[in-house]
Every structure is written in C-alpha cells, then in structure tokens.
C-alpha cells in the first residue's frame, strides 16, 4: 500500500505564503487606487486626495467603505448566477497569477528552508498565460449576464482586444524563452541574477517594448481602455454592476496591473535580483533571511516603478480608436514580435552552432 506522506509543515508553510502574498497584493491594489489618484493629481497640477488621513492615505479605506455601503442591484433580466460569478472570476484570475512568481530566494524559519514562491512549476509562463486568458471570462460573463446590449458590446470589445494582444505578448515571450531555455520563472530569474548574467532587457529591448504595450492592453489600461471607455462609449462591461461587485471588477484591474508589473520585473528586469550586488557574498555577510527581505523589496520597487509607468502613460496618452487598436495589434505588434523572434532565433542558433557558412 502506498502511503501518501503529507508533510503538515509543508502545507502550513504554503498556506501562510499564499495568505501573505494575497494580502500583500490586495494591499498593493488598494494603494494603487490611491497612488493613481495622487499621480493623476500631480500630473494635472493638482494635489490629489489629501483629506482622509495624512497625505490622504486612508482614502482607499473610505472608498472601500463607500462601495460596501452602496445598494447591491441585480437586474431582473440578468442571469443571477453568472452575474455574481463574473466579478468573482475576474478577481480570482487576477489573484491566481501570483502563484508562480518568485518573490525572493529563500528564508530559513525554524530550521526549514522555505522558497519564497508558492509553486515552482516548470511551465510557469504557460500557467500565467493560461490564467491571463481566463481573465477574459470575467469580462465576457459579466457583460453577458447583465443582459444589457451595451454591456455585451463592451464585453465583446474587451474580449477581442485581450485575445488579439495576447498573441503578440506570447510571441514576444517566445523570443525570451529561446534565450533562457526554460519556462520556469525561477530559472529565468536565477539566470539573470547569476554572476555575469545580464538582465533580459539587455538582450530583448524590442521584446520588452512589445510586452509592455501588450500588458497595457491586457490590463485594459489607457491608451487601450476601450472595454470601459467611461467618458465617450457606454461605461463598459460592468455597466449594470453596483456596490462591491463593481468594486471587484475595478479592484481586479489594479491587481492585474500589479501582477503584470511584477511579471515585467521578473522576466526582463532580473526579478528579485538586487542590482550591482553579488548575492552570494551578501548572504554570507547578512544572513539568508535579511537578503530575502532585501530581494523582496527590490522586486517590489521594480514593480512599483512599473505601476507608476502604467499611471504615467494613462495620464499622458489619449485612447485609441477601435480600428487603430486592432491595426496596432495585428499589423504592427504581431509582425514586430515575429521579426524579434526570428532574429533571436538566428542569434541563438549561431551562438550554439557557430557560423555555418
């Protein structure tokens, strides 16, 4: 008889890790809303929210309270089950991405060495893409279940946009994978942080450019926020939503933003690697736990910078028209990604096998 050995400590360790990462990403998403309004204010020569608490830091709490207090409206003609499922799905897919991201190297607690990654699966990137494309379901189900033609149109808009940009995103990642030769995010980060290893941005500037543009489109952020063009088209796929269900959709968008920022940092900017520092010697001098904290902080700062870029772009660039969006996605991004892939492939082949002619 085969005995399934369940290591209780292992389960506990992962549970704590999952809880920690989820609460951190929720907190980051919460304060992204604050940061967004602050950045918007500063870029428009205003001060942004500064009434609730010091620097307006309690503003997200007030916003959340407001959303909770609002009346929960479920339209009569809607499909109630799917109507409630929609925002839940959007939130869940947004959170699930965090499972494969390495947040730091290792820490030692109670004699155990704990990896700061929920699951080091060898198909990490594939998993992320699978989860990201599931995000479309949140939009589609929400738009369809509302039983409102405008919501449905907005959902279609959103879904087709996400699918078109996912192609270019995937292609830009393939070029990266040719270089690293691994789908595991941990391996990718370790390759970048190894001594003598450069960050992938050095090898793949074009790939990164394509990736960041597609990330904007995936997160439905300006200049690609057509699914919810709040001021000129109808509000979007969450038009019929109110109260915290609307809050979930908006929140999921901010979590997505955080996750894609972390992903960009992980894939192209060395992940938790602390720049200009030799990690091995740092571990000797400071101890493993301290270094893990610093690494987490380094990843977090990189992600915070990208979140800032997201906001910066939002308050700079006007929205694309839908045909321009599709034109950019299919006629510019995908060919560029293909060319990038081709060039990378040639370089990798030549480096491995030598110049054949």
């Amino acid at each position: 008889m085969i005995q399934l050995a369940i290591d209780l400590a292992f389960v506990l360790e992962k549970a704590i890790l999952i809880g920690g990462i989820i609460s951190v990403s929720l907190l980051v998403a919460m304060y992204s809303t604050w940061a967004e309004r602050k950045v918007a204010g500063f870029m428009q020569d205003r001060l942004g929210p500064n009434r609730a608490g010091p620097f307006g830091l309690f503003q997200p709490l007030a916003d959340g309270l407001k959303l909770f207090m609002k009346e929960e409206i479920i339209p009569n003609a809607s499909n109630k089950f799917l109507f409630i499922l929609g925002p839940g799905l959007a939130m869940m897919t947004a959170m699930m991405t965090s499972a494969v991201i390495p947040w730091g190297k290792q820490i030692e607690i109670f004699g155990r060495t704990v990896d700061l990654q929920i699951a080091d699966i060898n198909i990490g990137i594939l998993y992320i893409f699978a989860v990201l494309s599931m995000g479309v379901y949140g939009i589609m189900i929400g738009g369809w279940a509302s039983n409102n033609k405008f919501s449905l149109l907005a959902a279609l808009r959103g879904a087709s946009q996400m699918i078109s940009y996912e192609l270019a995103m995937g292609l830009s990642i393939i070029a990266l994978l040719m270089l690293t030769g691994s789908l595991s995010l941990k391996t990718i980060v370790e390759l970048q942080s190894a001594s003598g290893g450069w960050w992938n941005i050095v090898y793949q500037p074009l790939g990164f450019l394509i990736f960041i543009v597609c990330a904007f489109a995936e997160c439905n952020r300006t200049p690609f926020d057509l699914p919810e063009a709040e001021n000129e088209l109808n509000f979007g796929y969450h038009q019929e939503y109110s109260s915290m269900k609307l809050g979930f959709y908006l929140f999921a968008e901010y979590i997505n933003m955080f996750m894609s920022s972390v992903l960009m940092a992980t894939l192209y900017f060395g992940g938790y690697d602390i720049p200009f520092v030799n990690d091995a010697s740092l571990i000797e001098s400071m101890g493993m736990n301290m270094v893990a904290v610093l690494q987490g902080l380094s990843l977090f700062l990189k992600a915070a910078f990208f979140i800032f870029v997201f906001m910066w772009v939002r308050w700079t660039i006007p929205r694309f028209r839908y045909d321009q969006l599709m034109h950019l996605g299919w006629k510019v991004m995908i060919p560029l990604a293909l060319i990038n892939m081709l060039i990378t492939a040639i370089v990798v082949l030549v480096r491995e096998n030598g110049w054949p002619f």
Partner: protein
Amino acid sequence: MQMLTNRSKAVDRHPMTVWEKMYLPAIAKGMSITLSHFFKKKPTINYPEETRPFSPVFRGLHILNRDEEGRENCTACGLCAVACPAEAITMEAAERKEGEEHLYREEKYAAKYEINMLRCIFCGLCEEACPKDAIYLSETFAPSNYKREGFIYGKNDLLIPDPKKEPELYQKAVGERARKK
C-alpha cells in the same frame, strides 16, 4: 485672401515621415511633458488650513462696532436700513435705561438688529450711510448653513467682541483693514 492677423497658420498636411510614424518618439515627448508637470509647484490652496488673502477693499460679513470702552455704537437710526438696496436690514430701537450707560454709547440703541445674509449683496452702502461708525464690512464671508433661518444674523452674530473683556477676539474681528486706519 488677405489675412486679418499674422497669427493664423496653414494646417500641416504633409505625409508622416518614418520617424513620426514610429509613434514612440512622440509618446516619449508627451510623457516628458506630463512628468515635468508632476514636479511642478501646485497652485492649490488647502482651504480650511490655508486661506487666500482678501483684498484690502474686500466687503464681507457685517460687524456691529463698539467703542473703546466696549459700548455699542449703534443708535438704531435706521439710515443703514434705508440705504440698503436689497432691504436686508431690519432693526428695532429701544431707549437706554438708567444703569445701562456702560452698554450703549448713546440714549437710543438697537434692541434688535437683523441682517439677512441671503438678501445682502455686500455693496457696503450701510457702512457708508452710518453716521456713528457702527457698522462696517469685515474680511470674512458668511459660512454655509443648512437652513435659511441660519442666514438671518442677529445682534449676537454681528456684534464685535468687547474690546475690554476679550481684546484678542476683538483685534481679530477688527482685522487688517481697521488696524491700518
């Protein structure tokens, strides 16, 4: 066609060059502009904490004045009410009794003095009409209120603090303008 001004410019319709078609340089330019605004000084005045300085001729809420000994100047002559183009001022006169000399400067005083701040247009004609220097317009404006009745200011709201009993409040109410006189 003859131009009316030399400011008009012909619309530039030349086909975009490759550099312009790349779109990214333009984005970088735009982003540098927004970033420069990010670090600019903000013109906001945080109202309750900071206030914008009023002009020296600002005409705000009315104040019923007292003399140096803390006696009310107003004699309820009614000239301000007559001068008022918005008919915002009403008053009732009363005669000063024995033993009230420390309260009112002259034999007659205003037992009731009301200004409807919703009717008042803050023209300052009452101030000009007053022969006793009893009413003048201060440097504050009427705060908001939930009820219309709240905007009818009585003597309690209008009288300046007693300069003998509360000299600090009195100075504050007198404001910058009176100090210069």
